């Protein structure tokens, strides 16, 4: 590690903090990443889910299984990340900006005939929280 990134691994207690250290020291450059706290942190955390895990058909023959090569690193490298100055707004931003980029609170109407719904939400039922992808309004 030291040879490549000039960082002393004994200074980092976890791998993710080492990852963060390398990123910050060598790759961040002048970009500004906003520190998010308070209400904004709570709001965006509501939209922070993991991946979708679901079973649709319980059994089958001649099945092919595929994995994405490094899904999260792939999207990190290839999609734009939310950085820089943050602007809060209320109202329908779609009327003003063609393709707004950020985190929004929305009301969703879904098609009712989808084979596999893709938008997730967190539902708490009987004290047990799970994530599901509903259809409807």
């Amino acid at each position, binding site marked *: 590690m030291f040879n490549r990134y000039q960082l002393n691994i004994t200074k980092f207690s976890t791998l993710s903090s080492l990852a963060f250290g390398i990123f910050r020291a060598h790759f961040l450059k002048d970009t500004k990443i906003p520190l998010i706290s*308070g209400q904004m942190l709570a709001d965006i955390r509501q939209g922070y889910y993991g991946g*979708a895990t679901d079973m649709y058909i319980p059994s089958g023959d*001649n099945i092919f*299984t595929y994995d994405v*090569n490094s899904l999260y*690193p792939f*999207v990190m490298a290839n999609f734009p990340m939310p950085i820089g100055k943050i602007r809060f707004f209320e109202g329908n*931003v779609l009327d003003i900006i063609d393709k707004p980029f950020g985190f929004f*609170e929305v009301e969703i109407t879904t*098609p009712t005939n989808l084979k596999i719904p893709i938008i997730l939400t967190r539902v708490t039922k009987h004290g047990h929280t799970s994530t599901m992808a509903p259809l409807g309004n």
Partner: protein
Amino acid sequence: MFNAMNKFGYSFKVIRGYLFDQGFIFKDYVNSLYEIKSTTSKADPMYLISKLLLNTLYGKFGMHEEVFFTQHQIVSDDELFEMIDFNMILDTTPLREDRQLISFINDKARDIDHKLNELHHNLNISIGLSAAITAYGRIHMSQFKQEDCKFDILYTDTDSIAIDRPLPDKFVDSTKLGSMKLENIFKKSVYLGPKMYGGLFNTFIVDKDGNCNAAITKVKGYKNIVSFDTLNNLLYLKDDNIQKTELKQEK
């Protein structure tokens, strides 16, 4: 959001939100480490290191604030009882004799809100990044869940799918970042629920530890091997003769 709107027919009404600038800040980081990962053999420690460095960075921006206030200490039972009064004990691990390893948050650190706010400026949290990364991950996977796909999905996980015929070649490349890699072909498979499934191979397959296997099975949270038949039988149980299938976990 635009992905869901155009390809799936969802519609949205925006109420409020936060607008951000855009930037490809992880491109060089990922490419540099993926280069290491794909050019070293799996036996080389650098392979695992680069893989872990790639996969752990995004979570760092979404860490729970509380983690920063959590302390760990080895204490005796008596000391633990004293600490309960003014600390929130999160976890205890019994050690030898009457010693315990405990994780706790000191009430003082927790209750004072304004102190928390002050500290946030040193925490390096930017949850937007973490949330965006997992969301893009789901968007990327959603291309295989579209209506016009020529295959049926039996099961999906964060980054994998099980389908009833081969994927078109354009999606498959075992070395390219973000492409699909064919993992297994199962003669028979059962999916009982999230993270609980089994698949039977056509022939015996030798795994990386040199073991010969006829099937792969996985049960959430359970480390021992479950036979494929056990899972298969569970699926076909009728309600009126539910048999309890017990799994015992070795420690």
